């Protein structure tokens, strides 16, 4: 069980940016409660055919590694150096200038020197030098090399599951060294010897089987969507249509599964449903491709590809023209930067055209999948929906750019455009904490477990602190985000660091503001919170 987290003041006082005297290579890693994730369940590893499934835990002395584990990792290391230019170049060119050091949210929140991106990479680089460079082979420690031992492996496990692959360091690196790339390689290597965490492998196995991370079976999926349709009717008086697995629909809509199963994601789902109905979109959900997110990204190339394959396969089976994707962060890294390469070409689809505005989404000409922020901002731009931003006046909103849409896609203005049209009170957080410099929620890339809570609270400190700033200065009371992991992990984070600030999605705000044909007067917002009594009649 997770230990009760420290009090905020205690936690802050434990942060010391000055490193200890003892060199990091001589400091073995300790697995403190609250700062690591449990190992993956055996049956899930077996379901995915992953190597060396076994029962073990990070706190145990013996990790029951296969006998030839060093050989497996050495070979895997070489293999990846030959396959990824990024990996080879990033192993070679770091000058340790230290510009990245205080850019990592985990370093800022923990002060642990091995959470400086430069040292995180050195964990691998030291072994790289020892095994693959002449200087390292001859000079060893003097050249910054070291042998791969169990101690080093444990260090890898600890620190590469303390990186959320958010890419903030790569914005500041003069050579663009991206720790996300390095972490991805390290996690692949760990997987080769059966070292995985459950919060990644269980969702991945679920997704492979049922189509979504949560393991919701088709009838459960249908129930969830229908429940939302009923609820939306109660709130608005409008009965919407939400087809599932409908062949011949124009558009396949794929959202992260938390949207139809978790809160506050759920209100975003209501927003989607209301919007699609109002503009008369001919679309379908799919129970088979009922997950936009992809925990395979946090595991390995292969797992990512296996999970991602469903979207195109389903689009083909249903005969849709193109695919629309919901509010999700890492999902969009996969769709924007990987999907076409992994499972394309999508030549059975058409270049996406908005059936409502006629806008041709040329920027998705090849992948043929459009982000809902692009879709909705285009609707607003063309005045295709009637909006009453006054219905969000009880919210003073700020916006958290999710790491991946910001730094692996460049989706920066679209969400702001939408917010500005559906909310009257939008306040930005300080500039070093938004857009391309945005801070991770601290729980991304599969690290959002309860057992990892202390590390999450530490890693989330920079984000929460920026929220606190606008909360105190501008009375902000809701943090909007477009990522399912954010929506799941920011509420406990804010509860801890800055109570009284809620978390919501942008399409929740769209749903609130959307004036629907034939709707009843809205007495509450989508959360069921009553609007204040209106004076002098309605303002709609």
């Amino acid at each position, binding site marked *: 069980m997770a230990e009760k987290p420290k009090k905020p003041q205690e936690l*802050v006082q434990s942060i010391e940016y000055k*490193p200890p005297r003892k*060199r990091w290579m001589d400091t073995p890693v300790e697995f403190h409660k609250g700062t690591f994730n449990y190992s993956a369940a055996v049956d899930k590893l077996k379901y995915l055919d992953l190597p060396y499934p076994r029962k073990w835990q990070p706190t145990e002395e013996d990790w029951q590694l296969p006998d030839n584990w060093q050989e497996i990792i050495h070979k895997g290391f070489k293999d990846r*150096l030959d*396959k*990824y*230019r*990024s990996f*080879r170049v*990033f192993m*070679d*060119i770091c000058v340790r*200038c230290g*510009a990245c*050091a*205080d850019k990592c949210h985990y370093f*800022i929140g923990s002060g642990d*020197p091995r959470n400086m991106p430069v*040292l995180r990479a*050195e964990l691998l680089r030291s072994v790289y030098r020892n095994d693959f460079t002449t*200087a390292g082979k001859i000079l060893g420690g*003097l*050249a910054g090399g070291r042998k791969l031992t169990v101690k080093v492996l444990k260090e890898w496990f600890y620190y590469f599951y303390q990186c959320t692959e958010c890419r903030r360091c790569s*914005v*500041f690196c003069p*050579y*663009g*060294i991206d720790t996300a790339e390095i972490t991805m390689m390290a996690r692949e290597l760990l997987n080769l010897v059966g070292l995985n965490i459950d919060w990644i492998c269980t969702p991945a196995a679920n997704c492979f*089987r049922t189509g979504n991370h949560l393991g919701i*079976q*088709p*009838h459960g999926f*249908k129930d969830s969507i229908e429940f939302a349709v009923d609820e939306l009717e109660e709130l608005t008086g409008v009965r919407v249509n939400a087809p*599932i*697995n*409908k*062949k011949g629909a124009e558009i396949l809509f794929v959202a992260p599964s938390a949207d139809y199963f978790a809160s506050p994601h759920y209100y975003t789902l209501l927003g989607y449903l209301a919007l699609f109905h109002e503009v008369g979109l001919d679309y379908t959900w799919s129970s*088979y491709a009922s997950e936009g997110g992809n925990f395979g990204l946090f595991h390995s190339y292969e797992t990512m590809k*296996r999970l991602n394959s*469903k979207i195109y*396969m*389903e689009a083909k089976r249903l005969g849709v023209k193109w695919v629309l994707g919901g509010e999700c962060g890492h999902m969009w890294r996969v769709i924007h930067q990987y999907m*076409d*390469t*992994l499972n394309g*070409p999508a030549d059975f689809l058409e270049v996406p055209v908005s059936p409502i505005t006629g*806008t041709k989404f040329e*920027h998705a000409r*090849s*992948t043929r999948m459009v982000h809902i922020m*692009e879709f909705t901002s285009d609707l607003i731009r063309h005045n295709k929906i009637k909006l009453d931003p006054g219905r969000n006046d009880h919210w003073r909103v700020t916006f958290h750019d999710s790491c991946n849409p910001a*730094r*692996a*896609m*460049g989706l*920066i203005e679209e969400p702001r455009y939408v917010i500005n049209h559906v909310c009257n009170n939008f306040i930005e957080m300080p500039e070093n904490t938004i857009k391309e*410099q945005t801070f991770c929620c601290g729980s991304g890339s599969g690290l959002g477990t309860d057992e990892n809570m202390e590390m999450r609270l530490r890693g989330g*400190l920079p984000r929460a*602190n920026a929220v*606190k700033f606008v909360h105190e200065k501008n009375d902000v009371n809701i943090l909007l985000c477009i990522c399912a992991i954010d929506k799941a992990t920011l509420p406990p984070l804010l509860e801890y660091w800055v109570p009284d600030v809620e978390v919501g999605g942008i399409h929740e705000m769209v749903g609130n503001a959307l004036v629907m044909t034939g709707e009843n007067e809205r007495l509450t917002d989508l959360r069921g919170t009553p609007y204040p009594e209106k004076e002098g009649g309605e303002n709609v």
Partner: protein
Amino acid sequence: MHLFFSLAAVLVLLILVFIGVDVVGWRYLFGVVIPIATIISFILGMLYRVIKWARSPVPFRIPTTCGQQKSLSWIKAGNLESPHNIWGVLGRMVLEVLFFRSLFRNTKVSLKEGPRLVYGSTKWLWLGGLVFHWSFLVIFVRHFKFFAEPVPAWVMALQNLDGFFQVGLPIIYLTDIAFLAALTFLLLRRLVDPKLRYISLAADYFPLFLIIGIAVTGILMRYFTKVDIVGIKEMAMGWLNLAPVVPAGIGTLFYMHLFLVCCLFIYFPFSKLLHMAGVFFSPTRNLANTNRVKRHVNPWDYSVKVHTYEEYEDEFRDVMKAAEMPLEKE
């Protein structure tokens, strides 16, 4: 340990020259053999590294986007920070390579009472790095005068510009001062900032000391002692014309300068100094953010075991039927 080892290593190199040239008298070795070997090893070493990088494919297009993507026509795209065409990529690379764009963004975090995290702008590393690299380049180019007769006009122009203020005799070059200042800064920050000291390896101190050694011997020769410039130029021309000569009367100081330069160039391809070439190979910087526009092909892509819709329906047909969901097979 790393610090003292590096300093000691450079001192040993200097002692080697002293023994080699002054005691044993191996002027031909230090004046001809080693320089020519250096040139060859540098070229081969760099080719080896660059070819090795180039042979590793780029399986995915993974630019780090630091600005707005090109999406809808009415949203202004940031072509330099999130390039959507070749010009954007070139512009981004030029800004990165010539002006250290990313380093210019640098901030320094501090944790104040509250708690309140503050991100202050800090441009010192950017400035120090920029001054170091640019003055090094100018100094390097100024040395062309030893390798060409007559000296090209543009080299002379650069030299005159560098000595613009005409202070001192011989005239003091601005870049010499800037170079020394930047080097001192880069070394001091490694020593003074505890985080930097913690991450620094011998591989970080050694090239710094080596370059400081080169700068100091060079400055001593130019400003404080008399060296036989005519002889030195004869020797330098000799390497290029493959007609090596070792004129008498060239002092030990010059051999020290030359030997350290050789060490730097030999060391180059096997060290972090490779960042000079590596920055051009960085996939997060040199690729356009055109991911959804143009398909990127992974040369080693292979097919994986997927879970097809048919398998899915086979497993869940009963519940799907009960829930009145459409089926492929009844």
